[in-house]
């Protein structure tokens, strides 16, 4: 039912873990809906220098998280914001129709992490302004 690529990413997920003192953190889902994901990013020069994920979820959720980190790694933030649900699914050579929500989750997690980064920057900026 899953493509080879999905199974590869499920079996050998890339970039599992948490970046300590990350520049941005995105958490999506919750245990009640069965899927939960935490994305942490390190940003350098508006570029994703490092990215890690943790996922509680089905095979597709794990595989989409994994490939998402690959796709985002090294991308400029504005480009990374454009990674869509469909792009993630395509990166895995497709997903079964009833699993499309999982790829949604991964993209959402990344976008949240980037937004978190921007929010922190803004705060820091404001902090600076006050000084």
């Amino acid at each position, binding site marked *: 039912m899953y493509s080879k690529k999905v199974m590869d990413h499920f079996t050998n997920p890339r970039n599992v873990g948490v970046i300590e003192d990350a520049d941005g953190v995105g958490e999506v889902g919750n245990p009640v809906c069965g899927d939960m994901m935490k994305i942490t990013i390190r940003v350098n020069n508006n570029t994703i220098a490092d990215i890690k994920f943790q996922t509680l979820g*089905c095979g597709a959720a794990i595989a989409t998280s994994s490939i998402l980190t690959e796709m985002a790694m090294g991308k400029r933030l504005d480009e990374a914001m454009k990674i869509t649900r469909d792009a993630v699914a395509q990166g895995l050579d497709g997903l079964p129709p009833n699993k499309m929500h999982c790829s949604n989750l991964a993209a959402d997690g990344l976008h949240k992490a980037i937004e978190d980064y921007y929010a922190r920057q803004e705060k820091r900026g404001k902090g600076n302004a006050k000084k």
Partner: protein
Amino acid sequence: MDDLIYLDHAATTPVHPLVRQAMMLYHTEYYGNPETLYSAGGAANEAVEDARRKVAALINCDPSEIYFTGGGTEADNWAVKGTAYAREKKGKHIVTSAIEHHAALEPCHFLEKRGFDVTRLPVDSDGLVTPDDVKKAIRKDTILVSIMHANNEVGTVEPVEEIGKITREAGVAFLVDAVQTVGNYPVDVQTMGCDMLALSAHKFYGPKGVGALYLRKGTRLVQLLHGGGQEGGKRAGTHNVHGIVGMGRAAEIAMEEMTPVMEQETELRDRLIEGILDGIPDVRLNGHATRRLPNNVSVCVEKVEGEAMLLSLDMKRICCSSGSACTTGSLEPSHVLLALGIPVEIAHGSLRFSLGRWTTEEQINYVLEVLPAIVQRLRGMSPVK
């Protein structure tokens, strides 16, 4: 598939080689239509009647009370809708439980949308229906009580005998969905006191696509499949002769070997349950500890998603199933697990191993060897600690 560790017998069983052998001739030799007059049809007809006797013997009824169908789902649908239409003048109320199989629940839902009233009884945390609840739920306009013999997900065996006494006293038709038990666990329609009982061949080493409805003599039922006069005018459609022959042979084998198979399954089941509970932290057993199918091991592994475990087990050539929402693409995990009061987030991590007649100790040991590592790996990837 010889190296496969198949532990999903509750979903479907392989066909027993003796069953396959029995069916062999009915495709190319005795292919006649059993309803025909000539002798070529006669051989097919005799084979069908022979199978009917064997199935009847397995559940202790008269052969004339067995009606062959295209599977368990058809038997359930027929029983529910056929009773509703036959008795709607008397009333439009149906009593069932919250943990029935969809094949029995959904026809009720269909009727509900068409003016019937359905009471879905809750179950306790072991998955047991309380007979007294059934008694209290029966009203003047109740026409049908539908309770399964044993639950397909958590394995709990329901007190159908006591419920049968209640329905008899109340004069309400009683349907037992025995798809999980027939051929695997003793079924006696006389002690159950049921009026209808649904069964399916592919759950006891027979072929897929054939089942039966037991219909107690005198029980009124409107047809589901109208047409030719087959099955005493009650179920139309050319007989699935080879399938029926296979079902009969499977029933015969079950009659002979059920006791030793059950004993072996029970032993391996308990070994597997204990091994999982001992070997993996934060795991709970679903269903009743003792009133359970001899082949059912249902657990919830906390903080892991079920489908991810299935996939990992599959890579180790172990087949089992899960009531996780993600196995079906729905949003909610299995209605059965939720009805037992299991919290949603835990129900997502359910696993069902269902053993069979050829399951070995080595296979169980292997599962116990690989499962803890799988759980550990997945938990290690989770943001929830």
